[in-house]
């Protein structure tokens, strides 16, 4: 676990049996050195601000997470009950590593941390998310973010 043998049933069978369509093309975009990249995170943990409506199961929406939103303001409404939440409860960086990225930026390993990050609902069919991807990329371009770390749960 996620070595497959560590995932309890019936989640293991569900994971192995998931129909994955794959993608028609294999895009591969080069970029400048890492030390000059502006890095954004896309988490599929269905994070959002406390007080906002929870994600609906199967939702294709994206929630924008400004860097300035503190961890104390974020909650998680992911549909699955079959993964560990104790790690995220202790330390948000276990799933959404902005503190680590800020340290890497301060050390010059990356150029900067993006101003806006993104949360989506894991397990939603990607085929329904084309408009969401357009929206995310529009925001990335507006902020000149040129690297994305995708973090699943």
């Amino acid at each position: 676990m996620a070595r497959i043998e560590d995932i309890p049933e019936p989640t293991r069978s569900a994971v192995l049996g998931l129909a994955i369509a794959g993608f028609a093309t294999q895009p591969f975009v080069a970029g400048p050195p890492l030390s000059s990249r502006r890095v954004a995170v896309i988490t599929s943990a269905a994070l959002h601000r406390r007080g906002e409506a929870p994600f609906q199961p199967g939702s294709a929406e994206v929630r924008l997470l400004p860097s300035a939103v503190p961890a104390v303001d974020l909650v998680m409404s992911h549909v699955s009950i079959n993964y560990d939440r104790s790690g995220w409860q202790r330390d948000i960086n276990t799933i959404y590593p902005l503190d680590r990225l800020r340290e890497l930026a301060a050390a010059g390993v990356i150029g900067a941390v993006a101003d806006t990050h993104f949360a989506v609902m894991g397990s939603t069919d990607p085929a329904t998310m084309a408009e969401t991807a357009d929206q995310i990329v529009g925001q990335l371009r507006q902020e000149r973010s040129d690297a994305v770390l995708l973090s699943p749960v």
Partner: protein
Amino acid sequence: MIESRGVPTVTLGLVRHHLVATAPPRALFVPFVLGRPLGEPEDAAFQTRVLRHALGLLERRDGPVIIEDFATDAPSHRARSGWELGIVLPGGTADAAGVAREIAAVMPYWHRAVARFGRSTVGITSIEPADMVGALAPYLAGGPVESPVAGLVPALALRFIADDLKAFYSEAAQAEGEHPGAGQVDRWFWSETLAGQFLVALRRAGMASADNAIRAFATRFLVPVPFLPEGEPR
């Protein structure tokens, strides 16, 4: 989907099988438990190792598909023998009154946990921990239920209040001492607490509901199957 729109990506992957099937431009398979893509809570050095490995793939030019493996297990991948739970539960029966007493007993530990971690993940709905069991109890009757949360249908309210209740206990269980291995808190919650038994009873009642959505959520999204007691329908 992001890379095809022109922005370079790297993904962490918790299921290697899925990485191979999706063939992303750059991916780092991490052998951690589901729910912990950076591996280890409160271990900045470990998290940074994972991140540096993943982000380093952004400088590679030998695509179009790069899948690497992170070779090290997270330290708390397995149960930790040093973890000891400080909570003393009052016992009793798993009815609404019993669970309310248990929540009151757990409350001081939860406040300590919130102080320790500087935050709480409880709060998907605005229902406070002391009011959760009262909000959930009407679902036990199995009949039509008015949603206790404005803006959420009854099935989603049930689901998210239950999530908050689980988070309340889980955070309280980590109020003191060394941190537990993945899964240890869940095993305690489902095997030791009245709240766990209460959620199992809610699941049973929900599975008999006339509300299709409550039936579906109760069946699949309240109690993880590995923690269902013997004899409960799967």
